[in-house]
C-alpha cells in the first residue's frame, strides 16, 4: 500500500510530451528517498506505435505502465479520468502527478473529484519534511511561497511546465501492461470529430537561450510588440508577465511564472517588470538577469545582476534604434 508514485505520461502523435518527462525528475528524487517505485502511466490505443520514441526509452522511472485499448486512441476527458481512477483504485499509489499541460489540467481535477482527494495546482517544487511530501507554490501576497500538503491519498498535484529539467536514465524502464477489469465501461460521452493541428509553431520559450520579457511598465500593447524585434536581434524568445497576458497584449502561452512556463535562459532581459513572485518563480534560475525599470525598489531589480533604472519604453526604443 502506498508504495508507488505515478506520473501521467501524456502522448501525442505517438510521442511522449516532454512535460511528462520533466516531472519525472523531482518524482525520481522523492521516490528514491521514500523507497517507492516510480511509474510513468501511458494510455494508448497501441503501445507498439511508441516503440520508435527514444525519449521514452530513457525515461527516468522504474517502469512504464501501459493501459491499452482502442477507445484510448483520442483524448476523451471522461474516459481517460475513469481509466486513471481505476488504475489508482487497484494499485493504491502514494502519489499521482500530472504535468500542468492543458490535458493534465483537464484530467487531474476529474480524477481528484472522482476519488474525493486533494489536488494542488501548478506546484514548482517538491520537498520532504520528516518523510512528509510538501508541495511548494507561490501564493497571495508579495514574494510569499506556500508549503502545501495533502491529508488524503494518493497525494495529487499538477506540476508547473518547465519548472524541472529532464534527466535521462541509463537503463530502459520495464514495460508493464495493466489490464482493467473485464467489466470496465469503455464508453465516453465525448466524440472527437477532428483536430486541426496548430499551424503556428509552438514558441520555444521554455528552452530559449535568451528571453526578452515585458511587463505593464511598457505601458502599451504597441510597445510590448517591439520586444519581438529585440528578441529577433538577440536570437531569443518573448516572454510576458501575467498582467500583460490578461490585458491581452500577447498570447497566454508566453506567460512566464506560476501558471505559465518556467524559463532558464543564459540571458533574461525584463522590461518594465517589477517582479511579483508569480513571475519570478518562473525565471529565477536564469543565468544572467538584466532588469529595466523606473522603480529601484522593485523585487526584480534586487534579483538582477545588472539593473538599468529608467523608463523601459524609452530604453527599448533606443536599443532598437541602435540595433537597426
Amino acid at each position, binding site marked *: 500500500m502506498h508504495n508507488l508514485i505515478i506520473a501521467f505520461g501524456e502522448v501525442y502523435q505517438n510521442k511522449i510530451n516532454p512535460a511528462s518527462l520533466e516531472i519525472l525528475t523531482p518524482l525520481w528524487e522523492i521516490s528514491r528517498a521514500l523507497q517507492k517505485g516510480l511509474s510513468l502511466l501511458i494510455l494508448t490505443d497501441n503501445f507498439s506505435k511508441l516503440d520508435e520514441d527514444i525519449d521514452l526509452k530513457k525515461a527516468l522511472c522504474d517502469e512504464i505502465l501501459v493501459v491499452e485499448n482502442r477507445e484510448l486512441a483520442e483524448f476523451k476527458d471522461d474516459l481517460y479520468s475513469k481509466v486513471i481512477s481505476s488504475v489508482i483504485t487497484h494499485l493504491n499509489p502514494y502519489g499521482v502527478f500530472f504535468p500542468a499541460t492543458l490535458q493534465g489540467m483537464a484530467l487531474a481535477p476529474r480524477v481528484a473529484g472522482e476519488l474525493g482527494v486533494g489536488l494542488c495546482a501548478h506546484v514548482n517544487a517538491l520537498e520532504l519534511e520528516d518523510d512528509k511530501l510538501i508541495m511548494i507554490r507561490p501564493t497571495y501576497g508579495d*514574494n510569499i511561497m506556500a508549503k502545501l500538503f495533502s491529508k488524503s491519498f494518493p497525494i495529487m498535484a499538477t506540476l508547473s511546465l518547465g519548472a524541472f529539467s529532464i534527466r535521462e536514465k541509463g537503463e530502459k524502464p520495464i514495460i508493464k501492461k495493466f489490464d482493467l477489469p473485464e467489466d470496465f465501461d469503455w464508453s465516453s460521452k465525448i466524440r472527437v470529430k477532428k483536430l*486541426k493541428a496548430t499551424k503556428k509553431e509552438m514558441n520555444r520559450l521554455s528552452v530559449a537561450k535568451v528571453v526578452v520579457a515585458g511587463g505593464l511598465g511598457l505601458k502599451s500593447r504597441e510597445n510590448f510588440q517591439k520586444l519581438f524585434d529585440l528578441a529577433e536581434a538577440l536570437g531569443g524568445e518573448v516572454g510576458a508577465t501575467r498582467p500583460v497576458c490578461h490585458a491581452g497584449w500577447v498570447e497566454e502561452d508566453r506567460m512566464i511564472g506560476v501558471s505559465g512556463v518556467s524559463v532558464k535562459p543564459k540571458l533574461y532581459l525584463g522590461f518594465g517588470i517589477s517582479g511579483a513572485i508569480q513571475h519570478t518563480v518562473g525565471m529565477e534560475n536564469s543565468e544572467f538577469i538584466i532588469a529595466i525599470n523606473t522603480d529601484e525598489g522593485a523585487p526584480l531589480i534586487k534579483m538582477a545582476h545588472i539593473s538599468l533604472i529608467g523608463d523601459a519604453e524609452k530604453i527599448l526604443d533606443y536599443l532598437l534604434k541602435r540595433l537597426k
Partner: protein
Amino acid sequence: MERIIVCIKGVPRPGTVKVDPETHTLKRESAELILNPPDRAALEMAMRLRERYGVEVVVMSMGPPNVAPLLKEAFALGADELILLSDRAFAGADTLATSRVLAQAIRGLTPFSLVIMGLKSVDGETAQVPPETAAILNLPSVINVIDISYSNNRFYLTRETNYGEEELEVEPPLIISMNPKLEYFRPPSLKRLLQARDLSFKSMTAQDLNLAEDLLGLKGSPTQVAGVFEKVFSQRGEVWKGEPEELADKLINLLREKGLLQKLALINR
C-alpha cells in the same frame, strides 16, 4: 435544450487582498470583490445560447454576501435566475470542497443541459473547479472551449488544446470552462440594471443544500497550507543610472561583450 447554469466567482480587486495569518487563505469578506474576468466569457456564451435557443439561464455564485452585486451584474446581462451559495461553513474551501457545494447546487437544478464556468479564477489560478465539479456529478467536462453550438440533443464544441483546435461532439448534460478570449462582450442592459437594484434572489446555505459540514470549507479541504515563507532577494547586482540613451548604449556594449549580438551582425552584413 434544458436550462443552462453559469457559475461565477467574486475575486478581490487587485490591491485589496487580505490574507488570514493563520490559515493563509484569502479573507474574502474584507476584500472588495469584482467579477472574475474570465467569467465574462462564460456569461457571454450563456447569453448567446439563450438568444439562439430560447433557453433559461441560471447564474450562481458561492461566496460571502458581498458577491451579491456581481450576481446583479449577471442579471443586467440577461440572466433569468440568480442563486447565492453562502455560508460561513464554505469559507476557506479548496477546490474539492468548493466543487462539492457547486455540484450539489447544480444537482438541485436538474434538468439542465450545460454548466458553463470561466477557465480559471485570477486569484487561485488553479482551473480545477469545472472538471472537478463535473467528476463529482459523473458528467463529462471539456476545458478551454472557444465555441459552442447545439443540434439534435448534442453539443458541438471547439476547444483549444496544446496541439491545436479540436472539434468535439458531446452528449449533454456536461460542464465546460470557457477560454477567456471572445471577440465581443455585450454591455449590461440599462433597464435591467435598474431592475436589479431592488431585486431579491435565492440564497442557499449548507443546510439548504443538505451538505454535511465536515465536507465543507477549510475543514473539508484535503489540501492544507503547512506554512508560508517569504523569498528574500538580496541586492546582488550592479545598478546603472543615467539617461535612457546612455543606458541603452551601455547595454549594447555589454551584450556585444557577451557575444549576444552575433546574430544581428550577420543580418546587418
